């Protein structure tokens, strides 16, 4: 645009002021990008959880568990493709400061349902052959230096072994890659059959049934069918999509949305003052120059636009830098959230906020510039 030199001139009249204001905006939008990005990221991760997986838990509370006898009945429900289950084991390695969230399961079916888990087929076969076998993920293997073939003793504070001890011995028969699902996904699996056989109590109970369905559109229908099977029994079920369950658990963590929005709101509000003040100061100092422009024939409207565009240039450029910085931080969060990048919606929100900031802080000064009376301004009044 040919007016660029004029806008540039306006911005850089006081270098230090413009730089500090820009830096403040960069910082504010960096924070916005990080917070809102993480917030939306939670939502996205939850929403991206496949709706072709259902979780069946005890209706009264998931810790009450369901009979393993339900397995064949659930598997037979129309629309069910595959079935696995988890029984929470809660072990620790050497002492309780190293908790290992372990699950007893049907590994072959589990890895069929969670195709994002990468494992060699021979390990799954080894699990079927080895009663005391366990599959562990790469993070755990690295953390405790466990290798294939190792014998691992795990302590547990809940499940007493039939032989009366608190220690269970396991053999590592396979290592898998669960990085695509993030650090929160369970990484230690033992055979349900071993657990059932060796536990002194709690046998025949599982905490979650994991159901893979043929058609995601049928999720609600299949859920209702499963729950109907066991309605009015002593062990009623609640079936929901994995996404719904995750959302419920996330919600119980706290109202993260509110916290993020409150902080972002506070940041942007305080920023508004800074930017508005900068623009106002700038226009006030340039009263003479703006009057000259009007003398030369720049209309009131043009002068208003010049100031607004200045404000826009300042805010949008700095905001873009801030959000770009935030975006570069996201790959660093991969170990925690799995495949995760700055959601596009955050960039859109950021752009919108930058525009809003530019207009609100630039409007009063721009109007003032527009209303400048040439004669008075030139005379210094």
């Amino acid at each position: 645009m040919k007016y660029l030199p004029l806008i540039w001139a306006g911005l850089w009249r006081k270098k230090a002021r413009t730089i500090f204001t820009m830096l403040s905006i960069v910082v504010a939008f960096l924070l916005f990008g990080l917070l809102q990005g993480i917030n939306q990221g939670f939502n996205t991760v939850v929403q991206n959880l496949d709706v072709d997986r259902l979780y069946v838990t005890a209706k009264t509370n998931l810790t009450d568990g369901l009979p393993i006898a339900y397995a064949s009945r659930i598997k037979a429900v129309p629309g069910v493709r595959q079935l696995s289950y988890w029984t929470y084991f809660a072990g620790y390695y050497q002492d309780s400061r190293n908790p290992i969230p372990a699950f007893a399961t049907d590994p072959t079916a589990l890895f069929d349902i969670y195709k994002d888990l990468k494992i060699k087929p021979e390990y799954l076969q080894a699990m079927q052959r080895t009663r005391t076998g366990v599959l562990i993920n790469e993070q755990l293997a690295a953390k405790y230096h466990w290798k294939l073939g190792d014998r691992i003793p795990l302590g547990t504070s809940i499940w007493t072994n039939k032989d009366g001890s608190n220690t269970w011995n396991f053999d590592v028969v396979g290592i898998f890659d669960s990085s695509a699902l993030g650090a929160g996904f369970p990484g230690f699996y033992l055979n349900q059959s071993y657990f059932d056989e060796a536990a002194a109590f709690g046998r025949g109970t599982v905490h979650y049934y994991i159901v893979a369905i043929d058609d995601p559109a049928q999720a609600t229908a299949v859920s209702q069918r499963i729950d109907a099977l066991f309605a009015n029994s002593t062990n009623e079920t609640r079936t929901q999509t994995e996404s719904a369950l995750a959302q419920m658990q996330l919600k119980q963590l706290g109202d993260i949305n509110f916290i993020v929005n409150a902080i972002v709101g506070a940041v942007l509000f305080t920023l508004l003052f800074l930017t508005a003040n900068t623009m106002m100061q700038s226009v006030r100092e340039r009263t003479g120059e703006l009057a000259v422009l009007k003398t030369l024939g720049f209309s009131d409207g043009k002068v208003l636009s010049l100031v607004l565009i200045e404000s826009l240039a300042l805010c949008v450029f700095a905001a873009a830098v801030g959000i770009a910085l935030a975006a570069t931080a996201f790959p660093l969060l991969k170990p925690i959230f799995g495949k995760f990048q700055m959601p596009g919606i955050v960039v859109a929100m950021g752009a919108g906020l930058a525009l809003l900031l530019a207009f609100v802080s630039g409007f009063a000064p721009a109007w003032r510039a527009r209303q400048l009376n040439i004669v008075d301004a030139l005379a210094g009044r």
Partner: protein
Amino acid sequence: MSALVTLRNVTKSYTRGKQKVEVLHGVDLQIESGEFLALMGPSGSGKTTTLNLIAGLDQPTGGEVEVSGSRIDRLARGALADWRARNIGFIFQFYNLLPVLTAEANVEVPLLLTDLSRSERRRRVQIALQLVGLADRAKHKPNELSGGQQQRVAIARAIVADPTLLVCDEPTGDLDRQNAEEIMNLLKALNRTQGKTIVMVTHDPRAAEYASRELHLDKGKLAKEEVRHVA
């Protein structure tokens, strides 16, 4: 031949707070094309106000202001701005260059309001700077130029769009004697060789000597007129 500028019974008053101040009490004057007119008078006589009215920076309370056949007292603010861009070149006492722009960028500003292409704008800027003798200082910023040089850049800016009328408000007010002479010579040359019509407000009698006609204002009315030979 009708005059380039005609003022008919022009009055102007301001309201300052609760007081009404009358600055011009019925001024009649005519300026021919190609004239170099000096407007003089004591402080408060209304000379700057008259200049502002001729340049379309302000509008009269009563009476008519006609420039190049247009009744500019009838134009709305937006139309007036347009008109100024096309017809007037203004030179101020304190130069009023934009401090962050170079000399040539400053001179280019009036051309931004036209439809000229970038290369065409550049060409005209070069010509204007050459005319005022500052082509070699094109890339300098105002704070790198002396007072006299800044005023010459301002003059270049005033003529770059080839306006009908050059309007000057105390052009030598902030300059020393030598620089003042240079500027006045330049203005005279523009008037003689380029045929530019110039209206100048000044209280410096030495500057007024360069003009072809002097008009004196006193208390908002024309008081004295002096016609000079073109020396």
